[in-house]
């Protein structure tokens, strides 16, 4: 842990703290949260307190972010590994596809994928994906291009190192090099990339849910704000908006700090 930069430690602590808080407050002791909430009841849902909805939403947003971030990092890693292993024209074609996906705005594509997924679910062809799974899949399908590009570039840099050249000269194959020599050096970077996807996934999900397109229950932070927004405009709902916003900012702040610090940390020789 002493090798982890201080800012990364702070970010990770914040992230884990929020996760534990949302689990304890929102899932394990919801009655205590409901009876002691100083912010009162939600104007659009008089049966729930603002704290219940905010901490419940925090838990869902965090779960969506973690699952989507992990899945998009995994897809990106696989695509980058395939690109480097095949090389040549196939690698170029993969890179062009990555660029094309990367150029598309996340929110727009997630909305289209949600529409497609919900239509399939309504017709009984959803493949068992509920609203949560559909959101995670949509975010992963949109978010893999960035990690793929980063992993491909990092792999290309690592492959030019002397120890990799030596291993190749000794007859090491592509998969062997990747598994034994490159992956240990890539692992901390993979964690940083995963953490960088986390805020992007959470924010995209929040925006799409805010539009009312996702149907997740219990509600994420974005969906909570989205379902209440019309009432908020007329009832001066800063009391409702500010806690959810603060939680969202803290979540993103933790992940961003940890990711940036890990990415800029000096690399040790593998």
């Amino acid at each position: 842990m002493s090798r982890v930069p201080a800012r990364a430690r702070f970010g990770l602590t914040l992230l884990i703290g929020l996760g534990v808080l949302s689990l304890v407050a929102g899932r394990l002791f919801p009655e205590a949260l409901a009876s002691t909430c100083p912010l009162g009841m939600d104007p659009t849902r008089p049966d729930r307190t603002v704290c219940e909805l905010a901490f419940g939403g925090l838990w869902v947003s965090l779960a969506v972010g973690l699952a989507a971030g992990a899945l998009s990092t995994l897809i990106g890693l696989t695509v980058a590994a395939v690109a480097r292993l095949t090389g040549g024209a196939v690698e170029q074609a993969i890179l062009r596809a990555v660029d094309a996906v990367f150029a598309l705005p996340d929110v727009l594509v997630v909305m289209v994928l949600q529409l497609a997924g919900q239509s399939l679910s309504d017709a009984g062809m959803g493949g068992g994906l509920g609203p949560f799974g559909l959101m995670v899949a949509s975010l992963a399908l949109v978010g893999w291009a960035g990690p793929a590009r980063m992993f491909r570039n990092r792999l290309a840099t690592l492959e030019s190192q002397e120890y990799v050249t030596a291993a190749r000269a000794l007859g090491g194959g592509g998969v062997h090099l990747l598994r034994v020599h490159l992956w240990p050096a890539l692992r901390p970077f993979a964690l940083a990339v995963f953490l960088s996807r986390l805020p992007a996934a959470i924010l995209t999900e929040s925006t799409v849910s805010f539009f009312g397109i996702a149907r997740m229950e219990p509600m994420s932070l974005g969906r909570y704000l989205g379902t209440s927004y019309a009432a908020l405009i007329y009832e001066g709902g800063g009391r409702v908006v500010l806690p959810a916003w603060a939680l969202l900012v803290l979540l993103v702040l933790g992940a961003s700090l940890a990711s940036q610090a890990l990415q800029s940390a000096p690399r040790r020789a593998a």
Partner: protein
Amino acid sequence: MRLVAQKLTRQLVLVPLVAVASYFLMTTLPLTTETEAKRQVSKELAASYQRDLGIGEPLGFLRPWEKLFRGERLGTSAQGITGDELLLKLSGSVGVGLMALPLALAWALGFALLRTRWRRGKWAALGDAVPAVAFGTPVFIPALLLAPGVVERGHMLPELCAALVISVWPGIFLGTLVGDSLETELSRDYVRTALGKGLSRGTVLRRHVLPNVWPALLDAVGPVATSLLAGSFAAERVFGLPYFGQLYVLAVLNKQVAVVVVATTTFASLLVLVSLAVEVVRYAVDPRSREATT
């Protein structure tokens, strides 16, 4: 020049790709009309779906565009759209984006200056915290906070407020980027040499430093343009602006699939246009870009 042409071709290929991919994705979707289905689809919508997408016809994927060019309505009569209306709504969103651009530049300049000042004092941590807070704040949150004053009491123009809220993150992002780049360039030897030879600080900045900062700024234009346009979706929804973002969200919510296909392609084309403009500007202002292409 060949490399620039290659880059432009790659960008332009994206438009038909998006058009065809979104068309085929939409046409493969089942449109549930049975009463037992969870979400019923009206007969009118089902008919417009068939009519607009030309399903089963040769070159059916051109049908939505054909209808738009003929001036016919896409989608149902209540929520559909004609080509002229689409352009009008798009121009509304682009207008909001263009209003947001100078605001974003103002935020960027202000933040870059403040960050340089904070770096030397006890407020150094703010230089890192502000971008994190700005990034962690989805556009709809400041929009929601401003909305009571704008929508209910009519204190400010909704368009101006939308531009204001969508400009914050791009502004802080640009400010961070330009601030970092400026700081790096100002610490280089060539700046000290130029100052040592008697040039004024302003001249060094204008003639030597800024040309080296331009590429970093141009690299950021793509993400900033995407962010401004995508951000306008949320702002338009909160402030009730009837432009492209609102059209898109309503088309998705109401399953107006032909409108979704056309709007997605239009949006992608807009981003490609921005990207092309950036490449042209880069070619004009960055000598390294010209050297790499000869």
